[in-house]
């Protein structure tokens, strides 16, 4: 979950993940955009690949912040109001 950018954020995270960890890791992460608001996007990825995704978010350009993580969209909705 990232704050501050539009849906291009997902492409920027994917690009960084591919550069740092390779195409295989990116495919395994299976990132999918779930929701998009003005400055918050919600996407899902495999829990087993959370490590490279969090590193990619921190090192993505333009900058973005992982504001929350959850196992379900419903719980996330309660916590961050999207």
């Amino acid at each position, binding site marked *: 979950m990232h*704050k*501050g950018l539009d849906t291009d954020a997902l492409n920027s995270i994917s690009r960084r993940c591919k*550069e*740092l960890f390779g195409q295989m890791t990116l495919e395994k992460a299976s990132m999918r955009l779930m929701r998009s608001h003005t400055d918050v996007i919600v996407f899902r990825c495999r829990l087993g690949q*959370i*490590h490279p995704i*969090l*590193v990619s*978010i*921190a*090192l*993505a*350009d*333009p*900058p*973005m*912040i*992982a*504001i929350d*993580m959850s196992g379900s969209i419903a719980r996330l909705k309660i916590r961050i109001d999207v």
Partner: protein
Amino acid sequence: MNFPYLSVSDKVDSLQSADLITISNFRKAKASLKKKLKAGLGIEFLLHPARKMNAEELSKWFAELLEAHIFCESSGCQFILSSGARWPIEMISGRSFDEILTEVGIDYHKHWRDMDRWLSRTLAKKVIMK
């Protein structure tokens, strides 16, 4: 009221008066650091320039961080990784920090414990009483 503070510098030449020094290129600064180093100094590395790096530069940056961490451990200095955020959007979540430290090859539990100890110890010496 007590006002704890830290003196920060980005110049290796002014090490003696600083609690913390910000380094942008560790490999260049290493030789000067070795000569002028004092134990207990905090050596800070900023994360925000890494966002603009390409894959090759970023890989080197990770290797440099590990080298710096080993250097800090052996010289009694505190390795500090900071977001270097100039705006709130450039801040980094705690979990992302942990993952970056892991990627560098640093045990993040130990890192945060050491940071906490270093900060308490350094701030205790630097309090202005008003």
